[in-house]
């Protein structure tokens, strides 16, 4: 048999296709988690009551925020699971090395994050449709539609990169846990402990984290911050994964 030289790009492409076909199950969890989110959203994301002298006003606010939140969580969890041994070994059933395996996983994660983000945003329409026809309430007060296409595209883009960023975080966490199973317990303890310690010292890291990303009004800065964080997380997980052997 003659020896074959292969290109990294060729194998990455094949691995992406392979993962797409092999891991369609991720969509089961996506649909389930989004339907659950929808169910919760039907209760209204917020409700405001105002007992005026002669009026009792109750406004229920419907938005698919919960679905988006669940999708972010799903992105994190899916990436986390893809780092577990069984899935990494799936890669190595066929031709690969660590570089192609990681690259193809990242591309695959990006693809499913796009799908997750899109369906999450679209689910907002389904939610409002159900709320409009089925749920009680006399009148529509506000359809704060996304007025123009560019705003919609911008919001869509933001959702995609947010979900993708959390998937990178999940991937990093998963890789760290793969180093040693004990870290499954140690890591959350350290993270939460650090948060508590820092907040005692008056520095609330989680607040800072959310402010850093989600209070950013400038779309360019937001993109820059989110994508840099994503890159850093993935780069770190590649560093961690280099310490892992494939099969033991």
């Amino acid at each position, binding site marked *: 048999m003659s020896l074959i030289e292969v290109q990294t790009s060729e194998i990455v492409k094949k691995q992406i296709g392979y993962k797409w076909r092999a*891991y*369609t*199950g*991720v*969509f*089961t*969890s996506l*649909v*389930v988690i*989004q339907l*659950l989110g929808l169910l*919760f959203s039907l*209760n209204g*994301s917020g409700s405001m009551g*105002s007992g*005026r*002298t*002669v*009026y*009792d*006003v*109750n*406004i229920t606010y*419907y*938005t698919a*925020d919960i679905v*988006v939140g*669940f999708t972010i969580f*799903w992105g994190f*969890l899916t990436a986390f699971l893809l780092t577990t041994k*069984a*899935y990494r070994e799936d890669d190595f059933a066929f031709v690969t090395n660590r570089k192609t395996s990681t690259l193809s996983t990242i591309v695959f994660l990006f693809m499913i994050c796009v799908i997750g983000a899109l*369906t999450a*945003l*679209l*689910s*907002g*329409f*389904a939610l*409002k*449709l159900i*709320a*409009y026809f089925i749920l*009680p*309430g*006399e*009148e*529509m*007060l*506000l*359809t*704060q*539609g996304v007025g123009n296409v560019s705003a*919609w595209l*911008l*919001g869509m883009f*933001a*959702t995609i990169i947010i979900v993708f960023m959390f998937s990178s975080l999940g991937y990093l966490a998963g890789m760290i846990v793969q180093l040693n199973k004990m870290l499954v317990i140690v890591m959350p303890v350290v993270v939460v402990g650090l948060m508590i310690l820092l907040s005692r010292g008056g520095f609330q890291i989680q607040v800072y984290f959310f402010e850093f990303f*989600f209070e950013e*009004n400038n779309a360019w800065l937001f993109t820059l911050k989110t994508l840099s964080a994503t890159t850093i997380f993935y780069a770190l997980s590649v560093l961690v994964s280099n310490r892992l052997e494939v099969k033991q």
Partner: protein
Amino acid sequence: MIVVAFMPILILLAVIIALSLLIKKSSRFGFGRGKAGLWMLISYSVLLVVSAVIFLAIPLGSIELKGQEKEEKEEQKSQQFYEAVQEGKLDEIEEWRIHEWSFPFDKEQLILQVLENDVNGINIFVERTDDLTETVEAFYYQTPLMINGYEVEEKYMPAVSMVMTTLSIYPGEKLNLKYKMFGSEFPFRLFDKENGSMWGDTTVSHWNGTALYIRVPEGLDVVGDQNAYTEVNPS
């Protein structure tokens, strides 16, 4: 609402269900099997797209809310309203008249009976006028309730009735207004703080004015709790 109280538990449950769904992979763990996931995604997406199309096709009365800046106007308006009432300038508040009553009355003494007025209060004003003889008139005025600049159309109405020499003013039925407010998801609100954070700023205006304006013939003896009504003497 009961559901709200159970929300944290439900969310926790959801997370557990999701986790177990993800982790159960027959012998190992994972995401289920076969092409089921893809088909689920496809049918779910079709559903979403269809509902989006339907939703966008519904001619929804989208009301642009004006928010806080309208609030000051409301306050002014409300003050003007009460000033006009106090001064008996009914023509100025004509546009807000909801209802009027007229009762023939030839007795010496009118008993004003106001129930539960401190709870469901409407402001009662009494004016003696020589325009009227053997008649008691009542007018109900109300400036509209504003929610973020949106005018609520439902109007409140007190129950006014005359039995013998007693004019009874009962609070009307409390109006329960339920509204649905559809907002955009938070990624859309990220860069658009002005239009985005409307929900947090939602205000139900406290400046809507109500007045039951009763006109009685000059010299009629009105008996009632002095705190329950205000006498008006238009100059």
